[in-house]
């Protein structure tokens, strides 16, 4: 109980004084999570939609694979990218290991299966409704993908937010490929992990509360945007 009270006090103090280190960590977290979520969406939303409306050999296998990847442990992804990006690895010469760019890449790959699987589900459900009309209009399956993605933008924005939340909460892979370097690759989640390791639970909880508040705020804003859009467009 003491821990919680002290965390609350700490959290408020950190925010009120706009603690410089906290600001740096928060800004970095936002940047990398947004970037990786954007990349994941740019790739996975169309892929999910394509699998949903497509008719091709191995489509069912693709669906099974996409759903299976949802259970991919993040530390495994972290390790894979560590090996890839390490100087001793195939992509070592780019020197990306232990930089925010490495975090973005690893997180993007972690978020992609989630976005793809959800996108596929939403588009597949809608396809039942749209299919014949689009076909009648001469819209090919391929051409239908951008149409559906835009038409389902309200639902898919929820998917994007789920992806963003997944990215923002990632710690294992970020630790491995980022190295949790003070001032360089320390994000909120790895900072929380560090403070927990040190046994400074109140600070860890305080950071956790701040992270939650940010994610809540993002979701709240997105919800408001969706409400407004739904009222306008039905």
């Amino acid at each position: 109980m003491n821990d919680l009270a002290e965390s609350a006090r700490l959290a408020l103090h950190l925010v009120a004084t706009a603690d410089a280190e906290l600001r740096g960590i928060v800004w970095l977290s936002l940047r990398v999570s947004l970037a990786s979520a954007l990349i994941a969406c740019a790739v996975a939303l169309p892929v999910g939609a394509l699998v949903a409306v497509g008719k091709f050999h191995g489509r069912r296998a693709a669906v099974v694979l996409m759903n299976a990847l949802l259970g991919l442990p993040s530390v495994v992804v972290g390790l894979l990218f560590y090996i890839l990006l390490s100087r001793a690895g195939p992509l070592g010469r780019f020197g990306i290991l232990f930089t925010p760019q490495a975090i973005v890449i690893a997180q993007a790959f972690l978020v992609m299966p989630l976005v793809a699987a959800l996108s596929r589900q939403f588009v597949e459900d809608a396809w039942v409704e749209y299919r014949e009309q689009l076909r009648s209009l001469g819209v090919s399956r391929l051409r239908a993908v951008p149409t559906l993605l835009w038409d389902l933008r309200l639902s898919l924005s929820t998917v994007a937010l789920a992806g963003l939340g997944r990215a923002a909460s990632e710690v294992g892979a970020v630790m491995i490929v980022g190295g949790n370097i003070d001032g360089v690759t320390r994000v909120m989640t790895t900072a929380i992990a560090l403070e927990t390791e040190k046994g400074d639970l109140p600070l860890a909880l305080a950071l956790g509360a701040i992270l939650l508040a940010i994610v809540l705020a993002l979701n709240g804003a997105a919800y408001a945007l969706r409400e407004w859009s739904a009222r306008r467009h039905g």
Partner: protein
Amino acid sequence: MTCNLARPAFAILALAALLAAPAASAADDFITVASTTSTEQSGLFKYFLPEARKALGFDVHVVAVGTGQALDMGRRCDADVEFVHDKVAEEKFLAEGYGVRRHDVMYNDFVIVGPASDPAHAKGHDVVEALTRIAAARQPFASRGDKSGTDAAEKRFWKMADIVPRGAWYRETGSGMGPTLNTASGMDAYALTDRGTWLSFRNRGDLVILVEGDRRLFNQYGVMLVNPAKCPSVKKEMGQKFVDWVISPQGQKTIASYRVGGQQLFFPDAKAGS
């Protein structure tokens, strides 16, 4: 369809690239130092790296992992400098040709903490005696068990006592110093910890320092430049400058001036002319 998808996709990717782009100043003006979690958690780096930056003119990025992993980083050429505290492992690293030269830097010490009531009567200044008593009394003991420098030291002490710790009383947590201490605190167990982590550890519960001062408990740190011959990507000029600074009188003084709770944590011992 491609142009309908390509344009928004590129726009999104461009935005992502903008967000993820490295700061203009980031460039190559830094070295990567592999060190250990216990050193990072002691707060030493936060304290002396700003001094280093002033003296050297470049940034030092510290990646803190377990000792084993830190040395592996060097073998993979992902670090420019090693800053760990496991002389045996460091000498092996050197022998394999991955390090250029090893310099003593500083030492801190380990202590054994345990419940204030000390059911095993371990209190004193003899680590081997203490461990023998703890094992005999089968009192709970929390061990890191994670291939770290601290863990390696602990295993060495057990070996010195000629004991193979086994049984329900000996708990390997497989994790860092903080969590292991958390476990010890929760279980009222004994544990071996470095003094630095202990001094900043806030969740002590009923635990106090019971064993300290045994010379064998001193934890020696060494610094090495990763061998550019084995790793062409090593930033050897900057790396060497850092190594030189750490063992220089200025660097040593900075280390000595670091305090936690009013106490000095690290005792510089770089040999003159080394």
